[in-house]
C-alpha cells in the first residue's frame, strides 16, 4: 500500500483534501483560481482547466469503504504532483473530482498532461481486503480562450459537463467538451467523417485517425467553424428554420460529394475548399436568419407587454378627479395651524432623510 500522507508541503497552491496544514484552504484556492483566470483573460495568456474524476468512484466506495475513496483521491493528487511542479498549478477538490487550473498552459500542454495522468492512473494499484484494485480516470478540459468558458464559472461548467460526458461514454478517457452541439455541428461532424473515409480511400490519402484519445485532435473544419450560440438562446422558431436550411445544405453537400465521386481524382484540399465555401455561405444565411428572428422576438415581446398593459387598463375607468388641489395646504387660521405646520415639517424632514438613505443605498449597490 502506498503512503500518501503529508504530500502538501510540495504543493503549496493545491489543497485536495481540505487539510488544515496546507498553505491555502480549498476556499482560498478557489479564489486564487478565479483570480488567476481573470489575469489570464486580461492579458490574453493561455490557461487550462482540467477536471479529473475517478471512474465508478461511487461503486468503489460502496465496495471498499470510505477510506478507499480518500486513498484513491489522494493517489490521483499525488500523480499530479509527480507530473507538475508545485508552483505551476492550482488544485482543489470539487465534490469527488479534482480540479486543476494550469496558468500559461494551452491545449498542447493540457493534452500532454492529461495523457500522463490517464496512463498514470491505469498503473495505480491498490490493495484492500486481500484484493487488488485497479482504477481509471476521466479527464475533461476547458480553456480560457474558448468563448463558452470565458468566465470562471463557465469554465467550471464546461469541465463539469465534459467529465459527465466522458464518464457516461465509459470512462478512461480525455474530453474537450464543446458546449452546445447543434444539428449543424452534428452535420458537420458527419461530413468530416465522410471526408475522412473518402480521403483514406484515395490513393496515398491520410489514414483514419485511430488514436485512443481521438477526441484530443481537433477536427480540421471544427477549428474554423464559428461557435454555435448557447442552447438556451435559440428560440424554437429558429431551430425549425435552421433545420430546413440544414436540409438544403446537406442536399448541396451530397451533390457536391457525388460530383466528386463521379469525377474521381480531384485532390482533397480542393474539395475541402469547396466545402468550406459552402459552409461559409451557409453560416451567413443562418446568421441573417438569426438576426431576423431575434428582431421578431423583440417585437413580439413589446407587443405582448403592450397587450398586457392594455388588458390591465381595460377594466379600470378613467378614474375620479380629485376634489382638492385648490384647497391644498394648511389654512392659516385653521385650528392649531402652528402646531400642525410644525408636525408637517417634521414628517417631511424624516422622509427627506429616508429618501437620502434610499438613494445612497441605491448608489452603493
Amino acid at each position, binding site marked *: 500500500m502506498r503512503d500518501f500522507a503529508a504530500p502538501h508541503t510540495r504543493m503549496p497552491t493545491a489543497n485536495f483534501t481540505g487539510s488544515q496544514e496546507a498553505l491555502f484552504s480549498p476556499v482560498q484556492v478557489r479564489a486564487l483560481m478565479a483570480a488567476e483566470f481573470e489575469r489570464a483573460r486580461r492579458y490574453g495568456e493561455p490557461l487550462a482547466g482540467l477536471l479529473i474524476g475517478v471512474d465508478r468512484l461511487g461503486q468503489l466506495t460502496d465496495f471498499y469503504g470510505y477510506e478507499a475513496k480518500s486513498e484513491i483521491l489522494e493517489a490521483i493528487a499525488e500523480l499530479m504532483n509527480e507530473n507538475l511542479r508545485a508552483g505551476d498549478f492550482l488544485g482543489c477538490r470539487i465534490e469527488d473530482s479534482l480540479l486543476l487550473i494550469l496558468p500559461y498552459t494551452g491545449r498542447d500542454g493540457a493534452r500532454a498532461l492529461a495523457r500522463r495522468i490517464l496512463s498514470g492512473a491505469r498503473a495505480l494499484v491498490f490493495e484492500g481486503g486481500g484484493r487488488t484494485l485497479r482504477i481509471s480516470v476521466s479527464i475533461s478540459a476547458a480553456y480560457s480562450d474558448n468563448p463558452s468558458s470565458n468566465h470562471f464559472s463557465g469554465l467550471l461548467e464546461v469541465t463539469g459537463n465534459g467529465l459527465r460526458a466522458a464518464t457516461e461514454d465509459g470512462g478512461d478517457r480525455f474530453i474537450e467538451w464543446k458546449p452546445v452541439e447543434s444539428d449543424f455541428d452534428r452535420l458537420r461532424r458527419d461530413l468530416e467523417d465522410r471526408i475522412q473515409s473518402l480521403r483514406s480511400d484515395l490513393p496515398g490519402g491520410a489514414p483514419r485517425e485511430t488514436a485512443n484519445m481521438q477526441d484530443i485532435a481537433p477536427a480540421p473544419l471544427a477549428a474554423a467553424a464559428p461557435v454555435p450560440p448557447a442552447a438556451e438562446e435559440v428560440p424554437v422558431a429558429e431551430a425549425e428554420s435552421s433545420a430546413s436550411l440544414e436540409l438544403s445544405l446537406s442536399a448541396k453537400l451530397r451533390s457536391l460529394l457525388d460530383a466528386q465521386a463521379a469525377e474521381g481524382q480531384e485532390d482533397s484540399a480542393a474539395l475541402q475548399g469547396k466545402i468550406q465555401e459552402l459552409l461559409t455561405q451557409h453560416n451567413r444565411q443562418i446568421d441573417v436568419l438569426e438576426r431576423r428572428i431575434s428582431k421578431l422576438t423583440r417585437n413580439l415581446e413589446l407587443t405582448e407587454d403592450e397587450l398586457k398593459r392594455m388588458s390591465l387598463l381595460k377594466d379600470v375607468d378613467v378614474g375620479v378627479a*380629485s376634489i382638492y388641489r385648490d384647497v391644498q395646504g394648511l389654512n392659516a387660521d385653521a385650528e392649531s395651524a402652528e402646531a400642525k405646520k410644525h408636525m*408637517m415639517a*417634521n414628517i417631511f424632514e424624516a422622509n427627506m432623510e429616508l429618501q437620502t438613505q434610499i438613494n445612497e443605498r441605491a448608489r452603493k449597490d
Partner: protein
Amino acid sequence: MSDADKKEGVLYIGIDLGTSRTSVSASNGVRETVGSYVGYPKDVVSQKLLKKDVLFGDEAVEKRLSLRFYRPLEHGVLKNSNADDKSDNEIQRAAEDLLKEAIRLAKPRKDELVYAVIGAPAQASIHNKEAIVRAARQTVDSVMLCSEPFAVAYGLEMLDDVLVIDIGAGTVDLCRMHGTMPEDTDQITLTSAGDFVDERISENIRTSFPEAQFSVQMIKAIKERHATVATDTERIRVDLPVKGKPTSFDITDELRNACRDMIPPIVEGLGKLVATFDPEFQERLKNRVLLAGGGSQIRELDSAIEEYMHQELGGGKVIRIEEAIYGGANGALKIAHDMPAEYWEKLS
C-alpha cells in the same frame, strides 16, 4: 407620463398598510379596503384557470390552495425585506403588488399627479420603511411615510398627548403620541390581539361543547359579527355542525370571556405608558385614549376598557374612533392634504 401632462391636478391618497387589511382614502372621495393577502398562481394550470397573474384580499384567501400565498405585512412589517433568496424576493414583490393594488383602487386619473401618505406600523424598521417607499415610488409621484398611530390621532385632530390603542389581527399596538414620531419608549406591542381572541373563543367553545365542529375561519367570522364584551346583551346563538348536522349553540359567555381576556394586558400597558410620562400631563393623557383598528369594533370594548382603567389606574376616558377600518387611511389623507405643496415637490 411626463410631468407636463399631469399639471392639471393632484390626487392625494392616504394608505393604511396593515397586517390584515390595507385601506385607502383618496381626495377624489374613493375609499377602498383590501385584505393584505397576495397570491400568485402556483403553476400554469392555475394561472389558466384563475386568468390572473396576481390575486388580492379575499379572493386570494379563497383560492389560496392554487396560489403561492403571502401575507407580506405579517407582524406589522414587511417581512424579510432585506433578504435575497427567492421566496423572500417574492414576499417583497407581494408587498409591492399590494401597494400598487391599493393605489389602483384609489382610481387615479392619468392626468393627475399622485401624492401618497402611507401610515406604516410604528415599529417598522428602517429597512421596512425603505422597502415600502421604494415600492410606492414605482407607482406614485411623491410619497411620505408616517407612523400609523400618528395618522389615526391626526385624523381626529387629537394632536398631542394621546394614547392610541390599535387592535389588529396579530398585535395590539399601544402608542403614546406627543409630536409626530413616536420613539421606542412610546410604544408597547402586545400579542393578545384579534388572532388571539379567535383562539380563545375556539378553546372556550371546545371546552363547553366538545361535540361542535368548527374551523378558525368560522370562529373569526362569528366574532366579527357578534363580538361584544357587554354583560347585558341578548343571547348569541350560532349554528355549528355536530357530526355534519347544523346544531344551535349559545356561545354568549364563550365569546364574551374571550374578548374580555384582551382587556387586562391593554390596561396594564396603558398604565406603564402613563406612569413614565411627564407627571404634569399624566391626567390629560389618561383621558385621551383612542381605540382604533379592526378589533376596536368589539361592542362595548371602549367602556369596558374605561371601566377597567378606573379600577386599575384611578380614571380614564376612551374614545372609539368612528371608522375602525378607515381611521388610519383618513388620517393619512388629512396629512397628505395638510402637507405644503413645496414639500411634496421636493420629494418627487
